[in-house]
Every structure is written in C-alpha cells, then in structure tokens.
C-alpha cells in the first residue's frame, strides 16, 4: 500500500492513492453480462447506473465495505470509476480478456427476396435484400435492407470497422422477438458500423434499415460473442467488416 508523510505534521500515513494506481489493483474484465448483453455498474459520484459490454477491461481495487470499485479502461466510459457489490464483482468480473485483434466479418450479398414472412412481427411480409455473414467459423443469414423507397439502402461493398457498442439499444425494438425465439439474448447490443453518421449497425432482428441484421434469432448470441470477444489495438472497434458482391436491389 502506498505511503507518504504529511508535510505539516510529519506524520506517516497510508493511502490507497488514486484508484487504479495502488499496488493491489488488478486488471479484470467483464466476463458475465445480463440477458440484455450488458453489465450494470454504479457510478458512486452520481448514483447513475452505467452499462458496460462484455470483456470491458477494468482496473479493480480491493473490496472496501462490501463494495468493489474499478476504473474502466476502454469504451464509452473510459476513465470512469464505477462500483459493484462484492458479490456481484465476484460473479461478473473475471480474468478472461478479449482477443487483442479485430475479428474478420465477411458479408456476401445474395438474393433479393420479396415477401419474406416475419412470424415474429405478426406475419408481416418483408422485401429483404439477403446476404450471408461469415465470422469465426459461423455462417448466418442476414438482411441488408428491408425498408425501401429511398428511406434506407443496402450498405455498399467495401471495408468498414465494426465499433464497440456504446450504450444498450432500446429493448422495445427487439423484445418482441423473444416471443418467437425464447433463446434470444443480448438483443440490446447493437454494434455500430463506422460509416456516415454511424447509424447502421450489426444487430439482431427481422427488419434492416440498411444494417447488417441477423435473421437467425437463436444464433445471435454466437455472433455477439464472436464480435464482442475481439478488440482492435486502439480498443475502439471489434471487427473489420468486408462487404462483397452486389445487392440485387440497390435502392
């Protein structure tokens, strides 16, 4: 434990110092998240609940009065000091780190399918620009656009960064998919694609607003893990997305 002398009195005092600089601080990672895909921790200064995605790197101080404080080392809350109860810290934080290189995500355009029926959306017919995603040995069907007439368009072929998710996306946009696929989880994790105003995402669902939308609800958890378990060297992105081929319906 660091120590120092108080100049005015000459007394020697022990101090933990600034959080994360003490010798007892340890690097850990968010190893468990809720079914929405996020760990909720408390900002003790504001009493706000802050959401962290899986594998977020944190610098953890020893428990004090039943709580564990830690400093966030990456992502939207970089540098912020948060806390968990001691029991939750034991449960949710751990030693498993992310892979320190971005995942490779390959999208290949396929057919434009008219009248794809979404059971999860009450039998709605949707015109889908289909594609296939390959990532980490997984291959899943995605839709690259479902809303036409100039409102949204499929992503142009090219290379993009898939960014670390910053905040939980609204549950209201995907919660109803659980009615048809009870195994669906982590649906509030939407990965922004670095393009324009970053409003396109890799996410789960049946409707794509020009996003990479994973149609197989049961396999979203695997895609989520393949993405969230990776980090670029700067810690800002999780994957490199390559889009190949040509959409049959471009607009």
């Amino acid at each position: 434990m660091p120590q120092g002398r108080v100049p005015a009195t000459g007394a020697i005092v022990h101090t933990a110092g600034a959080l994360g600089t003490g010798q007892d601080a340890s690097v850990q990672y968010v190893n468990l998240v809720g079914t929405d895909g996020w760990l909720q921790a408390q900002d003790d200064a504001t009493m706000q609940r802050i959401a962290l995605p899986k594998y977020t790197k944190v610098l953890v101080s020893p428990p004090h009065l039943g709580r564990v404080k830690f400093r966030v080392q990456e992502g939207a809350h970089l540098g912020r000091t948060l806390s968990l109860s001691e029991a939750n810290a034991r449960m949710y934080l751990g030693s498993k780190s992310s892979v320190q290189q971005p995942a490779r995500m390959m999208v290949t355009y396929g057919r434009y399918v008219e009248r794809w029926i979404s059971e999860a959306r009450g039998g709605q017919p949707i015109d889908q620009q289909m594609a296939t995603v390959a990532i980490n040995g997984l291959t899943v069907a995605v839709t690259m656009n479902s809303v036409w007439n100039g409102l949204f368009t499929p992503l142009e072929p090219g290379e993009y960064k898939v960014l670390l998710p910053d905040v939980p996306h609204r549950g209201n946009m995907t919660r109803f998919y659980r009615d048809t696929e009870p195994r669906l989880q982590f649906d509030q994790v939407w990965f922004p694609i670095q393009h324009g105003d970053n409003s396109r995402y890799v996410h789960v669902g049946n409707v794509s607003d020009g996003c990479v939308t994973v149609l197989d609800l049961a396999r979203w958890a695997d895609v989520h893990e393949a993405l969230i378990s990776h980090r670029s060297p700067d810690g800002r992105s999780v994957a490199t997305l390559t889009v190949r081929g040509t959409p049959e319906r471009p607009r």
Partner: protein
Amino acid sequence: MNALKTTWRLATVSIWFAVSVCAAENTEQPHEPLSADTLRILSNIDRRASERTEADKRAADSLNRDGERAYRKGNYRAARTAFSNSYPNFPTAFAYIMTGDSHWRAALQIARSHAASSAMGTNGSRACVMSNEHFPHDLLMDLDQHHEVGLALAAKANGGKLPSEPLVQRASAEAACLRNLGTRYETQPATACVDMDALAACLGAPLLQ
C-alpha cells in the same frame, strides 16, 4: 371465441363493402376485399391476443409517443421506425395506420429533397427521383400490411363499422387513393417515372397536426 369470430367477420365484411372517397380524385369506389397478407396479419393478431401483457402495451405506447413526436417535427423516417416497432409489441390500429402513412410521407420527402438537389437535364427536365420498377409492388404490399390492417382493427373495435374519427376517415381515403395510384402504375413500364405530385395528393396534409 364465437363472438370474437362474429365480430371479426362483421369487421371484414364491413371493410369489404365500405365505400371510400379518394381524396385526390374525389371519386367513389368500392373498397377491395382484404388481401391474403392483411388476413394473415389480422389472424395472427387474434391468435396471440391473449398472450399480450401490460408490459407489451407500455412498450408499444412508448414507441407511439416517439413516433408522434418525430411525425409532428416532420421527421417521417424516424416516425416510421418508431411506429413500425410499436405494433409487434402490441398491435393497434393507430400504429399500423401511422406506419403506412409515415412511410410514404418519408419517401415523398426524400424524393423531393433529391429532386431539389439534382441537376437539371439538358432538356430542362429533372432526373426521375422514383422509378416505377418496384413502386406498385411496394405500395400495394405496404397498404395491405399497414393501412388495411389498421383500418380493419379500427372497424373491429367499433363493432364492425369504420369509426367516424377524422384520423381513421382520412386514413381510409388515403388508402383508397394510394391503392388507385399503385394499381395505375402496375400497368406502366418499369422505366416509368412515378408522379410525386400524385403521391402527395393522396397523402394530403399530415394526419397528426
């Protein structure tokens, strides 16, 4: 269950034979029978009605409020996104009608914005901002899954008769006019250019002021 079926049949029959007035052309015409898409969606709504919860309703209400806010600001694309995610949580006539209406207002808004920024052609005409390649299919399928579902739900809640509420009446006239437009463009070549003024005339003033 039988009562539900009877009410439902009444609503369907009522809609089938309802006479709507087209806002643009002001001609009376009989409403088309409900399509297979509309009937499938309505059947799904009925089938899952008992599974809906208060939480589902709260989720839908919250998205409807977002949709209304965006709509009143003229951000029809955002309004469409909110309304279209409301009805899978908890289906309402309002969300279905507003999804269809917002979609075509957004399409019109975007087309006009492109038209305004596109360069004049050598003959003084502007480039076509919406071709007919997908327009009739898109419009007619959208009407079947949004306007028609919303109107049928509104009628069902009103004993099988379309309510006299201005929003519902406006939506009914809008749907009839849009259907006319879509049917007309079905006979046009894919290379034809969609008349944005005709689309605007069908939509008229925003449904929510």
